[in-house]
């Protein structure tokens, strides 16, 4: 036993139940004890309560099962009631027919300090990460709200735009829609591109209104709007320009293309009646290259309007091109129901 005193670390010997049998000088010094008689009779008296629980739930079961346990971290309580962090190795040994447990301690002040700092740093990092995650979740939620809001505003804008460019009676676009479409075409095409504009006017519309009433007049306008839509390409635009006057915008259509569209309109009109009478339209056409940066739509409209006037004066139910003196299309085969000219109803 005296040999234990030469070892440069604290050593304790107990029986299988933790009853203290021996301790070396280093252990006495570590614990602040003068002699062995001062040693607590039980090993667990050297430990604060958390260490006692750990001893009972981990160290004793392992010692009894495996015979040894290495590198256990514990705290001892010395005579001055100071807690001393130690690393412990313990092993079960047969000694002269008796079961003994040898406990070897290594004071671990530095390790203990590093470890608590590391644990603290880790727990700080964990807390920070958690706060970051929460902040991020809040930001994401705000962002989502913002993008929902933006989307709602965009939808509102779209519907306001649609409303502001729509004629309520016919569902066609209005003048503003026409201006937008022409401008857009102008800016996205070079000066070689050409476009056509048709001005369509219902023949004798005033007479329809006067004889059959405004409701019937409105129905005629709606019927005409449907036929105009049926006559044009997807890229074209039909708008109600005002009263019984409609405009068809035909981007990238030359005179021939415009003529085809006008012809289709006349054909579709054969199925529209006001009372017993077939409804016809007169059409003025203007085709131009994209050479005029400003007042392009005004000049198109003006020229088409003049051509329309010519179509009216030459007998209605026909199409005139602005650059022609005569109708570019033969008037549609005259129908028996074509109204005769009337001063009051002339239009």
């Amino acid at each position, binding site marked *: 036993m005296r040999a234990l005193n030469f070892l440069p670390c604290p050593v304790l010997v107990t029986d*299988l*139940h*933790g*009853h203290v049998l021996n301790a070396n000088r280093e252990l006495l010094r570590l614990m602040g004890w003068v002699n062995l008689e001062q040693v607590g009779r039980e090993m*667990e008296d050297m430990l*604060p*309560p*958390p*260490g*006692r*629980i*750990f*001893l*009972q*739930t*981990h160290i*004793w*079961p*392992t010692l*009894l*099962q*495996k015979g040894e346990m290495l590198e*256990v*971290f*514990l*705290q001892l309580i010395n005579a001055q009631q100071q807690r001393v962090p130690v690393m412990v190795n313990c092993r079960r040994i047969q000694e002269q027919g008796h079961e003994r447990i040898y406990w070897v301690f290594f004071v671990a002040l530095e390790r203990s300090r590093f*470890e608590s700092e*590391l*644990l603290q740093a*880790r727990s700080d*990092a*964990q807390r920070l*990460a*958690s706060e*970051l*995650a*929460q902040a991020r979740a809040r930001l994401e939620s705000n962002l989502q709200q913002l993008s929902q809001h933006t989307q709602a505003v965009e939808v509102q804008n779209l519907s306001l735009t649609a409303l502001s460019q729509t004629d309520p009676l016919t569902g066609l676009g209005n003048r503003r829609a026409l201006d937008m479409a022409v401008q857009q075409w102008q800016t996205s095409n070079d000066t070689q591109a050409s476009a056509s504009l048709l001005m369509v006017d219902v023949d004798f519309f005033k007479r329809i209104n006067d004889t059959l009433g405004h409701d019937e007049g409105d129905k005629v306008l709606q019927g005409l709007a449907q036929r105009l839509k049926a006559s044009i390409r997807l890229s074209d635009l039909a708008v109600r320009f005002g009263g019984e006057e409609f405009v068809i915008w035909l981007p990238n259509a030359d005179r021939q293309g415009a003529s085809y569209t006008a012809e289709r309109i006349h054909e579709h009109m054969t199925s529209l009646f006001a009372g017993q009478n077939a409804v016809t339209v007169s059409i003025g056409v203007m085709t131009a290259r994209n050479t005029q940066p400003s007042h392009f739509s005004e000049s198109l409209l003006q020229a088409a309007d003049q051509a329309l006037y010519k179509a009216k004066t030459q007998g209605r139910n026909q199409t005139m091109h602005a650059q022609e003196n005569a109708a570019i299309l033969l008037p549609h085969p005259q129908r028996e129901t074509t109204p005769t000219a009337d001063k009051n109803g002339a239009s």
Partner: protein
Amino acid sequence: MKILKRNNVHQLGNPDGPVLLFAHGFGCNQKMWNRITPAFDASYRQILFDYVGSGQSDVSAFNIERYGNLNGYAQDVLDICDALDLTQNVTFVGHSVSASIGLLASIARPALFDKLVLIGPSACFLNDPPDYMGGFNHEDLEGLLSLMEQNYVGWANYLTPVVMGQDSQTALTGELSDSFCSTDPVVARVFAQATFFADNRKDLPKVTRPCLILQHRLDSLVPLAVGEYLHQHLAGSTLEVMDAKGHCAHMSHPDVVVAAMRRYLSNHPALQPAA
């Protein structure tokens, strides 16, 4: 089959004998019973298991919410009985926290159990002065958690990534190492919290099965008064104070435990399992 693998269930002894179901305590695994089971091998069907998270259980089945409460462990006991088609006459033998777990299981399914043997049981480790002294105050138990952290965590754990957000469950994968005591820091902490902060005093009157309380005479974890408290509040219980020091008499004083169990079992003979 899944449950038997999940809880690493092993069966020993006489398959036709009455059933002894052994439940290990906090920190250990089913191997802690290997000094008790030989004594009952001839006449009993003995069932051993590891709680999920302990021993060689399937640690991927560990769930912090379920196992943060002793009822989650009691459910392991019931799951195992169901998986083995046991419906009655089970004698439950539980150490330490498993005593409480067994009591909870017997409250949930009284017909399943014939009686319970409780080794070193405690209704509550915390002091609740003046009427109840479990042995520890809150600070002691927090100290245990940090001591465990310092012992299990190992250096590798300092290097594991910090988890984003508080609710993220640490993924538990792989196998627990074969060491006798628990080594996974997350599992150990959850089990320790469930064990040492549990207060099962209100559950005691709900227990209807007879119990044998085996109290250690000198147990730094469970004062003598706690055994007496349990005896008073468990109707039909028998209290036996073993001449043993420590908290694991079934390991340190197996002869004492075997003798006490034999006496109790012969006075309360179990029925053979229904054919």
